[in-house]
């Protein structure tokens, strides 16, 4: 059977690749944080990454807006929204993605599928740091974390658990690592931006609370506290936490092997080893 051997979570700020490439104090810190997560990921030696991401109004906005969808294409390309960033062709484990989607629907979790799409920066920026050779195929799982109404946190966790069950029924011996992409508190372009930028971190205390619960492996509490109201208070990108919660649904709760926050930016870097 396919086995979940670990998980990682990282932010995806579209400016991070340039900041790291240019050097300087923040570059060193970011390189260290992405580096720590990458080290764990390499040691986990995944055959495939189940990648939880929230579309940033690029794939689904016009024609259809699924609350959950699994990308089942042979590969994808991007980022579609930041053409100035390094572009990547990213392989998708399409047979596995299709099996997961079929299992989910047949077991009562109605998740859609996406057969042709370009990916946006929430996927390419993490992979730029984690698997820059794009040599590990992904299964993209889209969680509608930005466009209200957002799915409930418990549904996102249940989605992760459903994918885990699907993997356990698959005869191939695949090592699977779950990936979550996103922030815990972040406002982009809205009235809760800072005084000096078009972005802001409206609720750093919530970011600290999320990180404390992650550190303690208290997923039940995190799901209970991640209400629509709390997520909305954390900013218009605060729903990216739902990608982390879906990721946490793929393994039994445990403390992470690595966890470090940048609370002033409303996000964290983390790795779990569940072998």
């Amino acid at each position, binding site marked *: 059977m396919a086995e979940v051997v670990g998980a990682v979570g990282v932010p995806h700020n579209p*400016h*991070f690749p340039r900041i790291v490439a240019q050097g300087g104090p923040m570059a060193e810190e970011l390189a260290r944080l992405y580096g720590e997560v990458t080290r764990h990921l390499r040691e986990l030696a995944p055959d495939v990454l189940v990648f939880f991401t929230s579309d940033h109004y690029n794939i689904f*906005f016009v024609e259809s807006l699924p609350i959950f969808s699994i990308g089942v294409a042979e590969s994808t390309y991007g980022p579609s929204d930041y053409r100035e960033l390094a572009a990547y062709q990213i392989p998708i484990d399409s047979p596995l993605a299709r099996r997961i989607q079929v299992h989910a629907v047949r077991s009562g979790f109605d998740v859609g599928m996406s057969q042709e799409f370009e990916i946006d920066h929430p996927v390419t920026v993490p992979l730029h740091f984690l698997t820059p050779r794009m040599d590990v195929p992904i299964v993209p799982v889209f969680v509608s974390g*930005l466009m209200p109404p957002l799915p409930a946190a418990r549904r996102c966790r249940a989605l992760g658990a459903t994918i885990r069950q699907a993997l356990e029924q698959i005869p191939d011996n695949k090592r699977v690592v779950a990936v979550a992409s996103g922030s815990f508190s972040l406002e982009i*372009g809205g*009235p809760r931006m800072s005084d*000096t930028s078009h972005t802001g971190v409206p609720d*750093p205390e919530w970011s600290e609370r999320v990180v404390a619960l992650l550190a303690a492996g208290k997923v039940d509490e995190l799901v209970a506290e991640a209400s629509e109201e709390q997520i909305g208070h954390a900013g218009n990108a605060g729903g990216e936490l739902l990608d982390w919660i879906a990721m946490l649904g793929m393994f039994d709760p445990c403390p992470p092997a690595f966890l470090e926050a940048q609370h002033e930016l409303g996000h964290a870097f983390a790795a779990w080893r569940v072998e």
Partner: protein
Amino acid sequence: MTIYAVNKVCYRVVHEPAFRQALRDNPAEALRGATPALSEEELAALLAGDVGRLSTMGANHFLLHQLGRFEVLGLDLPTYARRIRAAYPESAEVRRSWTSVP
């Protein structure tokens, strides 16, 4: 009539370079050709770069900020941010303590 027409203009600014250029060359013509059609109020606010008004009309902020990012309709990101802040003066005191993301 919904704010969707405005949100879609912002979406197209990200994904359609030709539309982006048309907005710079002849914004009134580009916006009058948009589908679904914009209301006169939406059209006037867009042409004025009045993102504060569009915000209070219900436009999506993530999409709206793309007008500043791509520097159309007389906007850039600092101008965009200034106009949104001006539309929500009650947020100013709280906002001062908040950090910004690169």
